[in-house]
C-alpha cells in the first residue's frame, strides 16, 4: 500500500497513509482521535478497535459508520460529534 489519501474531517483536510482506517485518520486529525460525545457530555475515542464498542461511530458521507472498520477513501467526508 503506497501513497496517501486526502479526506475531510469536520471541514479540515487530513492526509493519511493509503489504506488507513477512519479511526487512524481521527488520530492524525488531532488529539487522541475523539469521535463522539457521550450522553453525559464526555469525549470518546476509538476504544475496542474491532467493531464491537461503537465508541468510534461517526457520519461518513452522511451515513453512520464505525471509524475503526471503515477504510479512508479520497475525498471522504467525515463528521464527528454525535
Amino acid at each position, binding site marked *: 500500500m503506497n501513497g496517501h489519501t486526502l479526506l475531510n474531517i469536520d471541514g479540515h483536510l487530513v492526509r493519511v497513509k493509503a489504506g488507513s482506517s477512519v479511526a487512524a485518520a481521527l*488520530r492524525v486529525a488531532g488529539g487522541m482521535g475523539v469521535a463522539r460525545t457521550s450522553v453525559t457530555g464526555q469525549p470518546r475515542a476509538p476504544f475496542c478497535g474491532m467493531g464491537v464498542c461503537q465508541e468510534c461511530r461517526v457520519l461518513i458521507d452522511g451515513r453512520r459508520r464505525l471509524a475503526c*472498520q471503515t477504510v479512508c477513501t479520497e475525498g471522504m467526508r467525515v463528521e464527528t460529534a454525535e
Partner: protein
Amino acid sequence: MTSDIALEHCDVLVIGAGPAGMAAAVAAAPSGASIVVIDDNPAPGGQIWRDGPGAKLPPAARKWRDALERHANIRVRSGTRVVAVPSPGELLLEDAERATRMRWGKLILCTGARELLLPFPGWTLPGVTGAGGLQALVKAGMPVEGERIVIAGSGPLLLAAAATARAAGAKVLRIAEQASFASVARFGASLARWPGKAAQAVTLADPQYRTSSCIVSAQGATQVESARLRQGGSEVEIACDRIACGFGLVPNTQLGRLLGCALVAAGLRVDALQATSIAGVYAAGECTGFGGSERALAQGTIAGHAAVGNEHAAKAQEGERARWDAFAAQLHRSFALAPGIKAMPQPDTLVCRCEDVPFSALQGCTGWADAKLHRRCGMGACQGRVCGDAAQFLFGWTPPAPRPPLSPVRIATLAGLGDGADTRQ
C-alpha cells in the same frame, strides 16, 4: 416489504474471515460447492491477521489469503455484517451500500472473539483502548510514534500488543499482567510443548513486564495523562499518553445463540465434526472457546470438510485439533483472572459506556434485566457487548440474550426482516 432486497444463494456460508473461516472455506472448496465468506472488517484475516498500512502480515496469513483467492468458487464479501435471521436457512446481511438476504445450505460460524474490557476509573478517557484494540488500531494505520504507552490486563495478547506498538515507534513503558509470576513462568515453560510457540516464551522476559500487577486508574483532563498501577503491595503512577487494557477474550456467540445453537461454558457447543446443536450449522475457532489461531485453523478445516460431507478428511485433522485444545487449556489455566480484578471499578466508574451508567447504579440491581430496565445499562449502540461481559464478570449476571438486529443498521435493511419480525432492542 422484502421485494427490493436482493436474494442470493450459496451452498456453504462462512461467517468470519479469520483463520477459522479461511480454513473452513479452503477445506470446503475442492468439493465444488459455491462458498460465500462474509466478514465485517475491510479485508480477510480476522483480528490476528488484520491487514492495513501498519500491519506486517506473517507468511501464514499470506498463504491463507492466497488460498482463498485461488478458488473461483469462494466469494469473499468484506465489510459485511449479519443483521438478523429472517427465516431458517437465511441470513440478512448489510454492507456499506446495500442489504442482502442470503440463503445457505450449510452455515459455518467463525465469528471469533472480542476482548474482555473491564471498567476502571478513567477507562472512558480518550487514549484508553483495549490491548488487542490498540494492536488493531495500529495495524489499521493509527500513528503511535513517540507515544508513551502503558499496557495492562492479562494474557499473551498484552505482549503482542506491545510488540506491535514498539514496531510502530511507541515507547512501551510498562506491561502489567495480573497473573502471578508462578503462573506465567509455568506457562512459559510449557510453551516448548507446542511447535512454533517456544519463541513466544522469550517475549515473557520483556524488561517492562510485571506480573501480579493491575491497572488502578487512568488520569487526565480530556485525555490520558497517566496510569496508576498496583504492583504487589504498592501503587505506582506512570506518566503516559495511552493505556491499552484487555483482560482476555470472550467468544462471539450472538449469532449462534440467535440461531438457537447450544452453549457450553467456553462458547458454542460443537461435536467432533464441529457441528453445533442446530442441523446444518457448524462452528469453528474462537467462538467455540478461545485458544489461538492454530486451534482455529484446525477446527475450521474440520468444519469445512464436514460441511461438504467429507468426514474422512475432517477426521484426519483431529490430532492437530487435540494438540491445540491442550494449548488452549494451558492458556486458560495460566491467565485466570484474580478475584481482586473485580474491585477495580469505583462507585462513579461508568460500566455502560453507551448510556453512561455508573457502577453504583448497578450494585443494587438483581440482574441484567433489572439493570437494563431501570438503569438503561446495555440499552445503547453496543447492545451490551461491552457492559454485558463486564457485568457478567463483576456481578455474575447472565449476559443479555441476543435480539435482532445484531448491530445498528439502516432502516432500509430492516425491511428485509419482513412483517411480524421483532426488531425491538
